[in-house]
């Protein structure tokens, strides 16, 4: 078993209103950053997982997203491997 650190990004589905992104967009514009267009805001999670392999760590993360971490109705998610941490202690 090794230990992996994964990064999971959960973001609002395209087409859905993102009030938070809208407010940030508006604020950046009024602070003088005119060149800012669309802003979308989501969550990023860093999860340490113990698994046999990188693949199985990724699969576990995907299952977690489906079950708990992402809202299937309003959010999409992406998973990336950040690093393989040796042994059990992270």
């Amino acid at each position: 078993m090794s230990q992996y650190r994964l990064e999971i990004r959960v973001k609002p589905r395209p087409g859905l209103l993102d009030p938070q992104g809208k407010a940030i967009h508006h604020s950046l514009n009024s602070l003088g950053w005119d060149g800012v267009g669309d802003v979308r805001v989501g969550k990023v999670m860093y999860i340490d997982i113990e698994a046999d392999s990188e693949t199985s760590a990724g699969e576990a993360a995907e299952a977690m997203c489906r079950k708990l971490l992402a809202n299937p109705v309003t959010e999409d998610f992406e998973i990336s491997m950040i690093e393989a941490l040796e042994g059990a202690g992270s």
Partner: protein
Amino acid sequence: MKVAVITFPGSNCDYDLYKAAQQVGGDATFVWHRERGLAGYDAVLLPGGFSYGDYLRAGAIARMSPIMEDVTSFANSGGPVLGICNGFQILCEAGLLPGALMRNSSLKFQGKDVFIRVERNDMLFTSDYTEGQVLRIPIAHGEGNYEADTATLEALEAEGRVVFRYVDASGESTEDANPNGSWHNIAGITNAKGNVLGMMPHPERAMESILGSTDGVALFTSMAGSLSLST
């Protein structure tokens, strides 16, 4: 006492604060966040609510409002500034008070009455309380978990800048009495000079017995008393 109640888009306790100031004889005026200039006011009040929806972080966007430059110079020149709830969050974001208000440790909005203890009454905001007095005051916030770096936190305690602390009915600051996970049960702090006060509980909602408590009144009479003496 002439007080400015600053209204941001999304403020929702502005009216309550205005009424509280009036109740103690204050001459209150709403000042919209896009207005400029605070000359002639004896005190500035930042109300609770959800300025800019609390999007991004509570208070983060509001502190960029034009009026905040004036609030900052008002504070820097020693003028009394009181921020309640979202007002406290804005003061922290603006750097007028140290630290930050993070999400409640329960991850839930908390709306209920709590008890807070007056840690010092030698300030213009608290002179009508007695030291150690326990107040019953409503809270209503999702991000009231006070945090700062260790040096700041230690300085706050060492310099006696914690003005209010969450306690139980008997006045003990226990973990159970802490509604949001704040470090050392902090409910309200002041700046080094003592002219800027930020607090999460809502004294303006504890002004009449029909609302369940009158323990907030003394905060406003303290201010009114001190300010009418000084002008």
